[in-house]
């Protein structure tokens, strides 16, 4: 398919890119813009490693078509984005990171959760992160990290 130009708003900056109509946002972010923070894990909406925020809501970049994202606000881990700083600090302090491949997606899902529920219960955190898989099995510390970020107050 012939690529067409469009304008995206990513991490507060306006970027013009060429994208085919069937290009996913993940492909555009990674291959066209070299914003590699969002990861290609399953590329079919299961693992959550590609999670970004579209208009502040968590979304699978691998299932989002680039052309449907025009004029929307896209946030990736590549930031800077003040709202995730507290979470980044908490993930580092609690040791909620092992291989790190799921971490960008985890942090963005957690950011969306905290924006909606600033003081989430453990059950809220489990639900909020249920679309993000960690195979190093670090879930307990990830939950602790989100709790710590929530305790630290508004983002």
């Amino acid at each position, binding site marked *: 398919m012939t690529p067409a130009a469009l304008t995206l708003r990513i991490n507060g900056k306006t970027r013009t890119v060429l994208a085919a109509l069937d290009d996913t946002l993940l492909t555009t972010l*990674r291959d066209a813009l070299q914003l590699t923070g969002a*990861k290609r894990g399953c590329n079919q909406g299961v693992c959550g490693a590609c999670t970004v925020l579209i208009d502040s809501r968590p979304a699978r970049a691998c299932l989002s078509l680039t052309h449907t994202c025009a004029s929307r606000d896209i946030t990736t881990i590549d930031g800077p984005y003040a709202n995730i700083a507290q979470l980044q600090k908490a993930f580092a302090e609690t040791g909620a990171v092992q*291989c790190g491949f799921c971490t960008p997606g985890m942090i963005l899902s957690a950011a969306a959760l905290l924006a909606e529920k600033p003081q989430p219960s453990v059950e809220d955190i489990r639900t909020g992160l249920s679309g993000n898989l960690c*195979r190093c099995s670090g879930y307990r510390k990830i939950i602790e990290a989100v709790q710590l970020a929530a305790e630290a107050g508004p983002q």
Partner: protein
Amino acid sequence: MSALREGAEIGRSVPRLEIQEKVTGRAAYIADLYRPNMLHAAILGSPYPHARIRSYDLSAALQAPGVQAIITGDDLGDDRMGAFIKDEHALAKGKVRYVGEPVAAVAAETEAEARFAARLIKVEYQELPAILSPEQALAPGAAIIHEDLDSYFKVFPAICGGNVCSKTELAEGDLERGWRECDVVVEGEFETAPQAHVAIEPCGALAEMDPAGRITLWSANQSVFRVQANVCESLGLPMSRLRCLTPRVGGGFGNKMEPHVQPIVVKLAMATGRPVKLILTREEDFEIVRARHPFKIRARTGAKRNGTLVAREVEVLLDGGAYADDSPGVLGYSLLMARGPYRIPHVRCHGTLVYTNKLRFGAFRGFGNPQVSFAGETQIDEIAARLGMDPVEIRRKNALRGDDPWFGGQKLLSNGLMECIDTAQRASAWPRRKERQPIPGKRHGTGFACTAHISGLLGTGAIVRLLEDGTVVLNTGAVDIGQGSDTVLTQICAEALKLPMDRVSVASPDTDGSPYNWGTTASRVTYTTGRAVIGAAAEVERQIKAHAAEILECSELDLELRSGGRVGIMGVPEKELPFAAISARAHWRKGGPIIGSHAWVFDQPTVDPKRAVAHGLPFPQIGVYSFGALAVEIEFDETTGKIEVLRA
């Protein structure tokens, strides 16, 4: 060499060294690497489990947009790779042996073009009978999967033939006598399922050839040295022509220890003269890499009326899939672990590993131990129930202790099993388990199990260099796949030289510059590489003291390292020198730059021939043993069958 005790750096909980890059999305994994003028690759997999390759028709694919090169088995020589049995080409050659097996690979300008062109490759196959279970493989008249098995190079005296890849046996005592002494004997068959690793990061590689023909290869791996060996073996390259590096690795669990697409990517980079990258899709990662072995286990365990274990026989049948990979090791290791961490005088463990037309099975956390431990521990519970004994008490009664060796006769340098049992029992408040009131439709259960595992096998090294300003670079070649070894090894080095951690930098594994490290596997890096780091740091300390003794005009024996990178005379606080002064002297005036190195290989025999009989065991020196005990409380839903672990 003495072990380091808790100090300024060891025993301190620190964030992992690469934490900032990981929480900011800056950590670069293989898929995040891009090279100028880079091509992308795609693989065509076999549609058949077992077939002869008649011919290839590449004409349509070669004319597809963006295509730069296509390789098939015809482009490969006779070279084969394999950790234990060299039975595998870089791409299928002559035959395909499992569905999905790479048959051809394309390099094109974009990933989409490469994948499109791969679908245009036409391959003519002659289907052969598919062998899909170990029983089928062993049946008389079964189609043979590796006709040339006898002529393959093997790194151990493999007992093989037909579709049998390896047979192994390990025995101690007199089994017949053992059975006669038993008052109670339990017998059973156990089957375990295959399992995929599913590291969140799929496998991938990127290779680039320089104008002199030397190749640099980045890949997701657990050992740059195993990558180098496998690629060079399968492509017939001298190892000096290939440099292997690793970016951050998104989990491995055994999947990335032996090769995946590295040989294919190197071959494409050589064919095109351009950098080539290939990142597998999740589906391809499932189809063409490796998985955990399904086991079929027949086990028999016997005890006296008082709960003393007397005899055990374990027979395993392993489906190895289409290629041997790590399977002979998994078979041998599972047999070594099948007795469990117990005193059982009469034991025979034996097994057969067979080729089938399925994805190869290989290393996966535990390496065959979980499967046999499941069978063995279940039988201990069955004996306890038959005798009316507490499951913990029967384990405690039979636990290895004192100078007891491991099955086969290897001396245990330390044994913490009893402490593990005590700790797990205390933490679980065992045997309070019967007090819990069952909820209608749910049942509660409590279980207790013991285990042991090895660590410490094979070779490793470390190089510690003192820089001009007295700070340090540590280079070990150990790949940190997320378990934190970069941080741990830095802590060890810093502790040994009494430096703060931020004065020690850790080099990324590089086959050109790092000392050999067999790999990040078998829970071995802290134990083996940590010892190499201590040895290398001790050599640096020796050289520092030799300089200091000359400058301060004292004996080396009177010198001590002081925290913060200084060396001084014991009992004379003012007589000291910073490492920077010593290193400057070494660099510019005397002796040469200070470099400490240390290397070692685990060399304790697995089997004591006076005690045990072993046939076809693929590892003469397996490593040191560690012990564990675990109590779990679960809830079982009678309607859905769902099991939830409440406490462990």
